[in-house]
C-alpha cells in the first residue's frame, strides 16, 4: 500500500472509531431513543474492544432499571406530623 492510501485508510478508521467519551454519550442516548445504524455499529465496535465502556454500559442499565422502579413505585416516605397538622389546619379553614 502506498503512503497516500495508508493515510486515507487511517482517516477512514479514525472516523469510525469512537472515543470513550462519545461511546458513553451514545450509551446514554440509547436509554432514551434509538441510535442510527451508524451510531449503533460504531458503539458495538467500540464495546468489543473497551472493557471500561462495557462496564459503563452494564452499570448504566442497572441504574436505568432502578430509576424505573423509582418512577413507578417511589419508596414510601412520610410527611412530618407537624406538616400534616399544618396542612389540615389550612384546609379546614
Amino acid at each position, binding site marked *: 500500500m502506498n503512503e497516500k492510501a495508508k493515510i486515507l485508510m487511517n482517516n477512514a478508521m479514525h472516523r469510525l472509531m469512537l472515543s*470513550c*467519551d462519545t461511546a*458513553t454519550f451514545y450509551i446514554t442516548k440509547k436509554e432514551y431513543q434509538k441510535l442510527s445504524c451508524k451510531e449503533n455499529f460504531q458503539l458495538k465496535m467500540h464495546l468489543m474492544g473497551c472493557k471500561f465502556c462495557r*462496564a459503563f454500559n452494564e452499570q448504566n442499565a442497572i441504574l436505568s432499571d432502578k430509576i424505573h422502579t423509582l418512577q413507578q413505585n*417511589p*419508596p414510601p*416516605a412520610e*410527611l412530618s406530623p407537624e406538616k400534616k397538622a399544618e396542612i389540615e389546619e389550612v384546609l379546614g379553614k
Partner: protein
Amino acid sequence: MPEDKHKHSIDPSRWVGEHGDYLFSYAISRISKREIAEDMVQETLLAAFQARDKFRGGSSERTWLVSILKRKVIDHYRKESRNPESLTDNFTVPFYKGGAKDGTWIKEHAPSSWDEEIAGDADGALMKVLQYCISLLAPRMAATFSMKTLDEISTEEICKELGISESNLWVLLHRARLQLRECVENKWFKEL
C-alpha cells in the same frame, strides 16, 4: 345534590390522610430536599382545594392531585435552573481532554466491576444510594435528568421550560449518567 355513582368523588378532609404521604414520596423522589418537597405538597393540596369545583371526576382524586403536583415540580425546576447558582457544577468529566489520550477514561474515574449480588439489590439499599447520588446533581442537571427520565417529558418541552438547547440537554444527561454511576460506585462499592 345527587352523586353520580360512576364518577370519582372528592373529599378534601381526607386528602392529608389518604394522599399526603404518597404525594410526598412522589415529590421527594424528584426534589430531594425535604422542606421543599413538604411545602410543595402543601401548595398542591391548597391549589387543589381552591380548584375543587373544577374536579370533574374523570380520573381518581389521587391522579388529579398528582397532576397538580407534577406541574408544581416542573415550575420548581424552571425557577431553579434560572438561578445562576444552578450552573455551579463541581463534576469532573472522567475523560482526558486533548493530547494522545483525548476522550479516553482517566484511570481513577473509570468503571470498576460491580458485584452482581449487590447490583441485584434485593433489600433496596442500592436504591437509597442512588437517591442520595441524584440529590447531589447540580440543580440544572438534576432538573433535566429528572424531567427526561422520571417524568418522560418531551425534549422540546424540557428545552423550553429550562431555557436550554437540545444539544445542551444531551450533554447534561450524559454528564448526569456519568456522575451518577461514579457516585454510586464510590458510595456503595468502595465505601462499604
